[in-house]
């Protein structure tokens, strides 16, 4: 399973990188979204996908899945959500002020 997950994560990273390298701001933000999915899955996979009960003690199981990566991912999800929403509003404001969402045109002023 971990091997399959590694391939999925690789594809997520691949597509995310491709989107981040494109011209449209929206596609870049979609790319960062994919990238964070890839990272979260990577953390979970690296923690091990072995069987076991959900990390709830009420289940009285003999073995549980590792709770630490889950806690880390939970934190990461929230943070990436905050950043993504900020980026989205930034893109919205950029378009409003500058009239383009093409990154190749957003080059700043040439200074001498």
């Amino acid at each position, binding site marked *: 399973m971990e091997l399959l997950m590694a391939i999925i994560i*690789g594809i997520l990273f691949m597509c*995310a990188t491709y*989107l981040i390298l494109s011209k449209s701001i929206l*596609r870049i*933000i979609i790319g960062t979204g994919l990238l964070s999915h890839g990272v979260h899955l990577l953390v979970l996979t690296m923690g*091990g996908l072995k069987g076991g009960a959900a990390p709830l003690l009420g289940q009285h199981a003999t073995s549980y899945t590792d709770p630490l990566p889950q*806690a880390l991912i939970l934190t990461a999800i929230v943070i990436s959500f905050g950043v993504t929403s900020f980026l989205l509003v*930034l893109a*919205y404001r950029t378009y409003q002020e500058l009239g383009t969402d093409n*990154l190749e045109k957003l080059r700043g002023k040439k200074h001498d």
Partner: protein
Amino acid sequence: MSILHWVVLAPFLYAIIIPILFTYMKRVHTGWFILPLPFLLFIYFCSKIPTTSQLQTDVFTLTWIPSIGIDFSLMLDGLGMLFSLLITGIGTLVILYSIFYLDKAKEKLNQFYVYLLLFMGAMLGIVLSDNLIVLYMFWEITSISSFLLIGFWNNRRNSRNGAIKSMVITVFGGLSLLAGIILLYLMTGTFQISEIIASVQQNSIMTDPLFILAMICVLLGAFTKSAQFPFHIWLPDAMEAPTPVSAYLHSATMVKAGIYLVARLSPVFAVSGYWLWLVSIVGIVTLIYGSFFAIKQTDLKGILAYSTISQLGMIMSLLGIGAAGVHYESETTYYIATAAAVFHLLNHATFKGSLFMVVGIIDHETGTRDIRRLSGLMQVMPITFTISIIGAFSMAGLPPFNGFLSKEMFFASMLNILEFNLFNMQTWGLLLPIIAWIGSIFTFVYSMILVFKPFAGAFKPEKLATKPHEAPIGMLISPIILVSLVIVIGLFPDLVANTILSPAISSIYGGGSYDLHIYHWHGFQPELFMTIGVILAGILLYKTREKWTTIYRVFPTILNRLYDILRFKTEGSFNSLTNRYMVGSLRTYLIYIFSFFVFILLLTMILKDGFTSDLSNLAPIGAYEIGLSFVLIIATISILFAKSRLTSIILLGAVGYTVSLFYVVFRAPDLALTQLVIETVSVALFLLCFYHLPKNARKKESIPFKLSNAIVSILVGLVVMLIAISSYSNKLFGSIAEFYVENTYKKAAGENMVNVILVDFRGFDTLFEIAVLAIASIGIFTMIKLRMGGKKSENK
């Protein structure tokens, strides 16, 4: 603090109150306030002559940074005394001269004298420091104050260029000197010059692998400061400075700082043959180069600049040859070169200072320094003419002036090297006296040009801007004092020989007493015939110079052009290089970053043979997982090909929900919940923005654009995949999950391990994650609400 410390610091302290005096005492020329200080210092140093002539050395230490061995320690010995007398003595005369040279109404005198005092203090610091780091500090202050003084008339383009040029070259040398000092510290473990010399005499550091490197670094510092070939190019351009500055810094003091350094560190390095060869060959090349190109100059100060270069080369070569004296002590044959060096050092300061002042007078009284426009000034400026004839004849090495004596000693020591039996001197050494002799002929020629072109011939006032007349007496005092010294030292050389010169020789050799007598007449020695030859050949060349000066067209100014290329062309090419890769496109930068990431990780993996795949520890794959993976991969890849924004947003949502299903499969209920909610909110946000963004999400992208993106992204994906597989296969130790399983209920009274970790075991993470959310929301609010400048304030 000893008196010597106050002596070094006095110019700095005095520099602080100069602007006050300048502002509140407008009616008096500021120079009058400065004048007493160098004079008092000169008196102080004179009073110490008896001490140093007994070869007593006083060391005064003031703790500065004791933890790394840097003390503000000063030492007054023979060599320091010689230089201190020059600095304060000529300093006094130059300040006196500058009072009459600079107009108190037109010039920014406060700045001028502050810079000059900074320079004087720093120069005293160099020659009196016993600590190399302190010496380096003062060394750089002289570079900076010289920069400020050359650029004193900073509204002139040439002044600025000359100042920058001298700064660049001398600071380059200064930094290399610092490297040399550090290397010396590594070899000997101390910064104190006296301790370094003592440790060198006990155990030779010659065998140390750093020895040659340290020597080259130190010599680079000395050669750049003393305008030795090929670093001399800054000195002619420094002639844009006011003439008192040229006289003081660029003939008598600063350019001798390199000479001082070579002399001071001779006891450390002179045991090596490289030192002898390097110093003497660079010196002799500088001598011939400077004297040859001095004849080409048409500007009086240009002639003097090249002449200074040449004379400094002569002193340097003498110091190099004098290094042989380290091997054979107490025989006149060997230390005569060092004696000639210190003697000529003193002589050069006297006659060159007076010549600069004479040129300044000519410039001041006629409005030009161009020798093609000046002639026949003898009639109107008789005193100036007398001064310049004495100075120039002394420079040419004619009796009875002091230049004659040191030139004779120069020839004598150049001839002596034929008898040396070390470092291959007896074979290749023959070239040195020949070059020295030819150089002296050129010296004779330019000295004659200097004195006869402006003063002899017919008087042509119509060529001059102003009506020339004799200079005011105040301007003449300083050069008169200097030329009287030229005559007095010339006639009675023993006045200085055993009081000032022989203690200096003793310091150069690191101890021992050297008896020195300088005679005007020592029989029909070879050097006398060499001098006669110089005079005869020189007169011949001077008379026929119109015929042969055309050869200067053959010599282009390669070195200056090289400097210009280094300074301006490299600036341009680095600019275009920067513009070529800093293109301003984020995508290009991302490509750099991703490529570097791929490159460095793949390289490490290959070099360290890092890829492993261990398939024994894998979890089994179920039907759900296969289905979900299929959906996830399809959705992800479809985003790339989505034509509209709506499709790509919906596909992103599909990816998010599939990921939360994965969390369900992998038994992470909290993650699944959070992911579900957050994905919903994000998609809503995306759709909100979508409404305001332009129609097409995909831009028209060219094939190369797509192809390079595709290559980079495939590589990134592959690298991540490889790293994931090999790091999973390389688990070194187990998880700490056991602790949480055991203690979640016992210690934290909870059953949901993830939540307990978030709020109890690792609560700090959560605190700052809340802070992140708060900042993001405040940021979003501000972005939407805040409008600076008030334009386009439509709020939606």
